[in-house]
């Protein structure tokens, strides 16, 4: 009896220790995010004070006003939305069209085409950046949204991912519609797409986050400050002098993270599941 209750007690203590250990780990993981949030609201004197503190003594919005004077930040925010949103929208439309053809319209060579598309997944964009840049330059698209968006307006992963999802949808519905004389586009738009909303949302989130956070891409395709994104713009703050205006940088970083954080809060479950399913394919 005593041994049983002491084992229960030991289990309780074990659980408690486990919980505390995880809490410590989670706090450490959160530290960089916490430092962004708090530093963004600190006055300059506190940002550069020794010994450093975590929580601001005085809360101020100075860093936020300064980021809008040091960088064309309103424009950068707009650019980030247009770039990441544009890529996401185009990719969803073009990928789903192609995926529909590959999943639903049997045609000669569809398997070969699929293999070629999947194979292109293995090409890292960093390795083909120079010819892509040359093309974009040839079209006169450097420093334009076209240059940022069009090369990414369709991607192999999205096509493959949506094709797999379309295959999992029952064919009875679209066959019934076909007998009724509905066109392929009609079936695609009114039957397959509405049933694929979860997959489209998943792919949309994945694409948006990746592009919003990308640094190398906007760095290469924009040379004018006012065509950059938030991510690429912020890197301009670290001047060659080596003096880093941390407060302003954290304010900018906070603004960069907030839209994704809001999106994350709204679609938290889907967000995490989407990561798992894109990872697992």
């Amino acid at each position: 009896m005593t041994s049983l209750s002491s084992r229960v007690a030991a289990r309780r203590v074990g659980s408690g220790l486990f919980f505390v250990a995880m809490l410590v780990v989670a706090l450490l993981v959160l530290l960089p995010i916490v430092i962004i949030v708090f530093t963004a609201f600190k006055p300059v004197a506190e940002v550069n004070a020794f010994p450093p503190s975590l929580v601001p003594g005085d809360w101020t919005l100075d860093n936020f006003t300064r980021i809008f004077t040091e960088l064309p930040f309103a424009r950068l925010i707009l650019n980030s939305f247009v770039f990441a949103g544009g890529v996401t929208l185009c990719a969803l439309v073009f990928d789903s069209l192609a995926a529909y053809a590959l999943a639903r319209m049997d045609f000669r060579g569809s398997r070969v085409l699929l293999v070629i598309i999947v194979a292109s997944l293995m090409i890292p964009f960093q390795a083909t950046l120079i010819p892509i840049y040359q093309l974009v330059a040839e079209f006169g698209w450097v420093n334009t949204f076209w240059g940022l968006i069009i090369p990414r307006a369709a991607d192999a992963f999205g096509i493959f991912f949506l094709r797999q999802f379309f295959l999992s949808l029952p064919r009875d519905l679209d066959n019934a519609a076909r007998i009724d004389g509905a066109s392929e586009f009609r079936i695609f738009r009114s039957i397959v797409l509405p049933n694929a909303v979860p997959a489209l949302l998943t792919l949309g989130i994945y694409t948006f986050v990746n592009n919003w956070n990308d640094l190398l891409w906007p760095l290469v395709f924009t040379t004018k400050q006012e065509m950059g994104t938030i991510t690429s713009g912020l890197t301009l703050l670290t001047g060659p002098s080596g003096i880093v205006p941390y407060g302003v940088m954290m304010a900018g970083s906070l603004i960069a993270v907030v839209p994704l954080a809001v999106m994350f809060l709204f679609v938290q479950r889907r967000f995490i599941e989407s990561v798992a399913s894109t990872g697992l394919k």
Partner: protein
Amino acid sequence: MTAPTASRPRYRPPAQLGGRGPIRGRAKRRLQIAAFLAPALAILALFVFWPMLSALRLSFTDASGFGREQYIGLENYVEVFTDPDIVRSMGNTLLYAVLFAPAAIVLALLLAMAINSPRLPLRGVFRTWLFLPFIVSLAVAAFAWQYLLDPQVGLLNYWLQVFGVRIGNVLQDPVLAMPTVALVAVWKSFPFYMIVFLAGLQEIPSSLYEAAKMDGAGPWSRFRNVTLPLLGNTTGFVVIIATIAALQAFDQIYVMTGGGPYKSTQTVVMQIYQSGFKDLDLGFASALSYVLLVATLVLSLVQFFITSRREKDAS
């Protein structure tokens, strides 16, 4: 599967049922299929496949973006494998991969097991919480860590000093700079791998653990003999994608060290960016790009075989 022939059951489009000639119906259908595929295929052809060939061609030239380019044979490739700076950037990339991948994977697996354990109170909260770094860009993560580790005003640096650990200016230290930029990537990337592991863990039937317990297996033995073997393919997948990600290291290095000090954090992609977009040595940068491409391709093929094996196991 053999090439599709007439024997394969094919859906007959309504146009044919509607009394129009089969020839016209078939042509119309081909046109339809083409219309669905055209936008995506045009983009992929122009911005993925053509650049792949173009980069290969460029890698044999002395292209600089100006004037006429000449074919110089393997000269760029010879330079890639003999120039000490470039060889070093490849070595640095491997060092980065060795520092980053194992740390990120082990951390991800441990935390996935923790947030999968029914004994952890507030499991759901931890899942959300630990996932948060995923939404932070590597560049922004780099800013935050740079401030935390600042030798004068960094909070983490100060806390370590309180415990008697002096790390100094890690980003100016040729030995410590690389582990530091790897640490930032570990922080940013482990949530993704953790979620992939979590999905894998959830597929292991709990009856196996019950059975192992009945046989008197302790926690370590259950991990060794149940978790690890059943997670094998997931682990293989994570190892490959983490390694591929490591080969592409750029963002936080660009922000935190710019490749320094003394080129100690200069990676292959940093070098491609430098050679291709700063020095405008397009031919040379393309040759280096191809080394990256081939390395990635090899890893991807390994991954492909692991994934297909996993699918075979699953069915």
